[in-house]
């Protein structure tokens, strides 16, 4: 490729990535040359600014045409923009948490690394959103994963953190291998790594043998990527890792990483398997053929997540199970395969992002203060810090999916899709609703602690600025989207045409 063609490429569409990349480089250098005594927190604020800038750059592209460079290895379409915005939102909130993170034997020494590793992970996730190529997707995925491994273990003098990172890396490695194994078959049966080309080739697929192998690859991909979603059967790492990892990292894993997982899953599943025919052109695509398998996975995820969460006494573990459950809900939307699936997944992820990050902000405050992560540490929070308790209450209610909150509208949207689909997924949706009711138990268990129990100590809690920002955004956002969801719906409707990305 000559320099000329190189320059002709429309690199501007990568602006958000470049911003993040540049800031990573700047932070690395700053960290090197800044005096050891200087507080690294400033770097965190720089990181936050960078994410905001990237967000602005992304938002500027909203509504624009689909653009891609270099054989779709980088691609800007509505899908990528929508989810990239989500990721950036999640990223910035996580960074706010990170700058307020000051536990005992924490990450003082590696504060700067802490920030730019977050940015790198975010970058990986962003790459995943805007790629139409298997290799780029894979690299993005791994960039995210490997950075996450490091982040999980960054409290290196903390045994739980080490163990968490170890478990994460081992499970991650296995999942990567399985995913890649699946990818290799997909590549082999199409001869290309470009997703759109794959779709073009597979749309006429009739060889039953190929279909068989491709379907196996489908299963491998789904199970492998389930790791990122923390969905069954690849969910078991989540509680241990969430518990041991530093709280902002847990927040990151439960939100940004999960969003990224959905991004890649949807991208591959819909583009490749949504077109790969089973019996020649015009026959049912593999994806639809395998709907029941997805449904089983979704159901298992919801049941496991919600039921096992009942037994938890550790708040972070409980939230791990809760996040498993939420992955299950999202899989319901994916399984139903209706045209509003993107809207509902996107909206639900947005709602989930707000409520989960908000909750983690409070968890971070409490666990830092208490030095442990037991749910019992929340006892009497209402006495100690009524505002925090009420905020947590609202977020929990949103997580439980009560009306008036974003969580409810999100669930409503998913139900709508599940019932609208032909054939309608009555059983799946019913499982979802039933397990939601089960989830009341543990969400309200936290409430019980906060509101009904007397506090162990009456010391007041101080809320750092970063936490405050996250809380305000989360609570206001949760309620606003619960009461006026059309803010988000209309944004999607008017500016983005995700269905067009996949089916036009």
């Amino acid at each position, binding site marked *: 490729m000559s320099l000329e063609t190189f320059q002709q490429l429309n690199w501007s569409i990568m602006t958000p990535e470049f911003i993040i990349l540049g800031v990573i480089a700047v932070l690395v250098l700053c960290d090197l040359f800044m005096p050891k005594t200087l507080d690294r927190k400033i770097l965190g604020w720089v990181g936050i600014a960078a994410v905001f800038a990237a967000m602005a750059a992304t938002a500027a592209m909203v509504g624009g045409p689909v653009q891609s460079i270099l054989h779709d290895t980088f691609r800007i379409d509505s899908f990528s923009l929508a989810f990239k915005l989500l990721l950036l939102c999640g990223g910035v909130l996580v960074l706010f948490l990170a700058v307020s993170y000051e536990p005992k034997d924490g990450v003082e020494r590696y504060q700067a690394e802490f920030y730019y590793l977050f940015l790198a992970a975010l970058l990986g996730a962003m790459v995943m959103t805007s790629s139409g190529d298997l290799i780029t997707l894979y690299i993005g995925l791994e960039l995210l994963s490997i950075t996450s491994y490091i982040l999980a273990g960054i409290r290196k003098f903390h045994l739980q953190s080490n163990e968490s990172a170890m478990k994460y890396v081992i499970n991650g490695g296995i999942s990567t291998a399985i995913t890649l*194994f699946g990818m290799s*078959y997909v590549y082999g*049966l199409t001869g290309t790594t470009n997703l759109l080309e794959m779709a073009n080739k597979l749309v006429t697929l009739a060889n039953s043998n190929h279909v068989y192998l491709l379907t196996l690859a489908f299963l491998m991909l789904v199970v492998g990527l389930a790791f990122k979603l923390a969905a069954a059967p690849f969910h078991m790492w989540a509680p241990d890792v969430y518990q041991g990892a530093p709280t902002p990292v847990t927040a990151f894993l439960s939100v940004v990483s999960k969003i990224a997982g959905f991004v890649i899953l949807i991208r591959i599943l819909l583009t490749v398997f949504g077109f790969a025919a089973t019996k020649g052109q015009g026959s049912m695509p593999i994806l639809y053929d395998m709907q029941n398998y997805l449904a089983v996975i979704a159901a298992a995820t919801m049941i496991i997540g919600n039921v096992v969460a009942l037994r938890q006494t550790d708040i972070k573990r409980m939230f791990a199970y809760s996040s498993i459950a939420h992955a299950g809900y999202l899989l319901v939307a994916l399984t139903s395969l209706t045209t509003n699936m993107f809207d509902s997944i996107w909206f639900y992820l947005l709602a989930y992002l707000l409520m989960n990050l908000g909750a983690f902000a409070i968890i971070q405050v409490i666990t830092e203060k208490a030095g442990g992560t037991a749910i019992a540490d929340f006892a009497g929070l209402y006495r100690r810090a009524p505002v925090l308790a009420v905020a947590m209450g609202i977020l929990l209610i949103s997580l439980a999916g009560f009306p008036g909150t974003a969580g409810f509208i999100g669930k409503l949207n998913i139900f709508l899709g599940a019932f609208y689909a032909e054939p309608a997924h009555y059983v799946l949706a019913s499982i979802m609703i039933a397990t939601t009711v089960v989830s009341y138990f543990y969400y309200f268990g936290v409430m019980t602690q906060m509101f009904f129990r007397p506090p162990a100590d009456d010391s007041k809690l101080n809320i750092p600025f970063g936490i405050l920002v996250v809380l305000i955004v989360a609570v206001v956002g949760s309620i606003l989207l619960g009461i006026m969801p059309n803010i988000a719906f209309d944004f999607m409707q008017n500016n983005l045409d995700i269905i067009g990305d996949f089916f036009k």
Partner: protein
Amino acid sequence: MSSVPASAFLALALILFCIGLYGALTKRNTVIVLISIELMLNAVNINLVTFSKYGVSPSINGQVFALFAMAVAAAEAAVGLAILMALYRNKKTVHIDEMNEMKH
């Protein structure tokens, strides 16, 4: 053409993948577990390279993919080992079944 059918290569990859998987899921020593994972990735690479030559419309892409996979695998191995080091300092064990500080 080739006297060795593509399926032979694929079968080899499958066998190695399974060996790696079995190792990763049963070996006690964490280093071996990490190595087993590398073996799995190797198996994948065999697949990729095989398909690069014998796949439906062969192309160089498979080989490139394999190279990427190797790079990533190396990074992953390094990070995994680093984490093991950190853990070892705190826990003085490399036995994976003793890493059960957090459970239930």
